[in-house]
């Protein structure tokens, strides 16, 4: 009950933040952190609830970013068909949902392919997938502009009563947009985890042979989870494309996947609040470190920070604090809703 109250308070604080915090820079970095938190939430669905470690998650993020950017800009590409494929610029929201669908499709493909293997092999397949996507983005210049990057991507817009279609360009508008998408994704994942599917996934994580023996269609559920996870990551990528308004092949870089993994694991994988907490810490930490030390020392602190969190809170921050809270308040022995 109390955790739910905490969650609501957090949400209220977050929603009103641009109103009382008159610092556009802070709102800006929260926006870009928020985008990565959404990606981390999607990764958590795979890593936390199915136990499958995808180290190619940036691929879905990048596919979402490129799809949304390309659909909203339009493109014209010759792929060896009799006539070139020409796509006219689409309204941004159509591009956005297109990105979600395309990322989901890639999730399905990778799910089908990669779940033939598990553990370390799965890790490597996903890494390889992201690297190949990066090479494609880098070299298929006709479509992606390669390293020259896609720029001048239009911002997302909403139908604002009285103003017609309004582009979301200010920091606060983008912040609210990201927050809204984030909240939707959070509750989507929360619903999934508590559904039949979620129970099957958790059974799978705990004991795959047992789950198999009682008739859980393992691969089917894993693929479903991957599709949803990829689709959410794609949505995060699309937000990135329309907020940063430039997409280049670096979105597929391994370091982005690493950032997401760090957010999930330090926050507490398999907990709903974990990616949010881990995301806030590791999204804001680089910004907080700016200017405090030489750039490479900031990175060293970041790396050591990861190690320390793992050493002292191996299950992540959220479960550790949840334990603490339960210890202090015996009434809260039941798993708190936000945490479970």
């Amino acid at each position, binding site marked *: 009950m109390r955790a739910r109250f*905490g*969650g609501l*308070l*957090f949400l209220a*604080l977050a929603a009103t933040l641009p109103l009382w915090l008159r*610092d*556009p*820079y*802070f709102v*800006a*970095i929260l926006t*870009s952190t928020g985008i990565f938190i959404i990606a981390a939430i999607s990764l958590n669905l795979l890593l936390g609830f199915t136990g499958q470690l995808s180290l190619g998650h940036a691929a879905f993020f990048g596919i979402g970013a490129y799809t949304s950017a390309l659909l909203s800009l339009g493109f014209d590409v010759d792929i060896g068909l009799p006539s070139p494929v020409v796509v006219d610029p689409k309204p941004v929201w159509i591009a956005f949902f297109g990105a979600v669908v395309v990322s989901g499709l890639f999730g399905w493909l990778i799910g089908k392919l990669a779940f033939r293997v598990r553990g370390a092999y799965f890790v490597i397949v996903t890494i390889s997938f992201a690297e190949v996507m990066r*090479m494609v983005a*880098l*070299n298929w*210049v006709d479509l992606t502009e*390669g*390293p*020259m*990057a896609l*720029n*001048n991507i239009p911002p997302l817009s909403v139908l604002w009563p009285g103003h017609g279609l309004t582009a979301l*360009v200010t920091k606060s508008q983008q912040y609210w947009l990201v927050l809204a998408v984030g909240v939707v994704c959070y509750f989507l994942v929360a619903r999934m985890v508590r559904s039949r599917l979620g129970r099957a996934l958790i059974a799978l994580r705990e004991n795959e042979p047992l789950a198999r023996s009682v008739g859980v269609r393992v691969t089917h559920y894993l693929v479903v989870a991957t599709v949803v996870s990829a689709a959410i990551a794609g949505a995060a990528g699309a937000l*990135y494309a329309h907020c*940063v*308004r*430039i997409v*280049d092949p*670096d*979105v597929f*870089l391994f370091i982005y996947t690493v950032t997401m993994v760090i957010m999930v694991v330090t926050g507490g994988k398999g907990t709903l*609040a974990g990616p*949010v*907490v881990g995301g*806030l*810490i590791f999204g*804001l930490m680089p*910004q*907080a470190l*700016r*200017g*405090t030390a*030489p*750039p*490479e020392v*900031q*990175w060293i602190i970041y790396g050591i920070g990861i190690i320390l969190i793992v050493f002292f809170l191996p299950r992540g*921050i959220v479960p550790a*604090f949840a334990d603490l*809270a339960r210890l202090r308040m015996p009434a809260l022995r039941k798993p708190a809703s936000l945490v479970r």
Partner: protein
Amino acid sequence: MIKHLWMTALAALFAVATAQAQETIKIGVNEPLTGAVAASGTYVTNGARIGAEVVNARGGVLGKKIELVIEDNKSNPKEAVDAAEKLILRDKVPVMIGAWSSTFTLAVMPKLVEYGVPLIVETSSSGKITVSGNPWVFRISPTSEMEAVAFLEKLDTFNPPIKKVDFLSVNNDFGRGAAAEFAKALASKGIKIGVTETMTPEATDLSAQLASIKKSDGDALFVTTGVEQVTLVIKQAAEQRLTQRIITTGGAFPDQMIANAGPAGMASYHILFFSPWSADKAKYPDVAKVYVDEWNKKKWEFAGLTEGFRGYDAVMTAVEAIKIAGKAEPDAIRQALWKTKLHGVNGDIAFIKQGPEGKESGQSVPNVYIVMLKEGKVTQP
């Protein structure tokens, strides 16, 4: 508990951002100081540091000292945007310098329009930067096209004359752009074009590309990439007995080859925008001398001089514009930049208009120098 963390994070951010009294004029520097292209970004930043010191030693501008606010863009376009927003929103800089690579610069450009802050582009070569209709961009580095056209005037320094050329480029804007522009310019002089090979920026083994180039019967190979790959190309070309003369574009100079010379008789040519070996042959030798002396006083790597001048010239340009504007405000500086004319290390700096009417970007026309590196010795033919 979550609220707690939240507040801690906020507090940390505020602590970092203790605002400073407005007794200095800030100039934002957005350069790659970590990651793949950290070396060049550091050189340019060092050049900018010298520029600020020289200006301050002469009493600053408008009676105030210059303060550089240096941000690392981590060799990554998204971080370049974050760095720009930090400089604009947090430090409230009225003018910025950056962001080295064309990709980073292009990423930052929408933010210039959004917040109305001018950017002095010191390195990026992509043609797109000044023709996309962004009135906040002022570039002092040459486009690949300018470099190619300027190179044509130096064609007679090559003997035997160049008849057919091949290209090896890093597969980004910089490399591809240079290959295309040089091919166009050289073709206009009746020079034939052979093969064009590309490489990823992180590639170290270029033997496959060089083997393909070796098959071509070209007599010159234009190489466009960062200084590290230039060094690798020259070393590996020697190993594979490439017959083409190697000419590098974009201002990269393989300084490591001075101490560790290649095989006897092998020479390479380098298009530079400043040649510290012949600073006396620069257009304004007295300007160049101040820069070189200050750099050497700090005992920084000599090699860094070839890139560091970009930061130096950019700071000087910004300061001159602030002086003309009479106040350190973004739009005033933008307008003043159009009137700015100064003698830089590279040569004359003055902006011409490029891009769609009404939203033109500024572009200066820099000088180009060619040096030859042979058996560890540098000469300017």
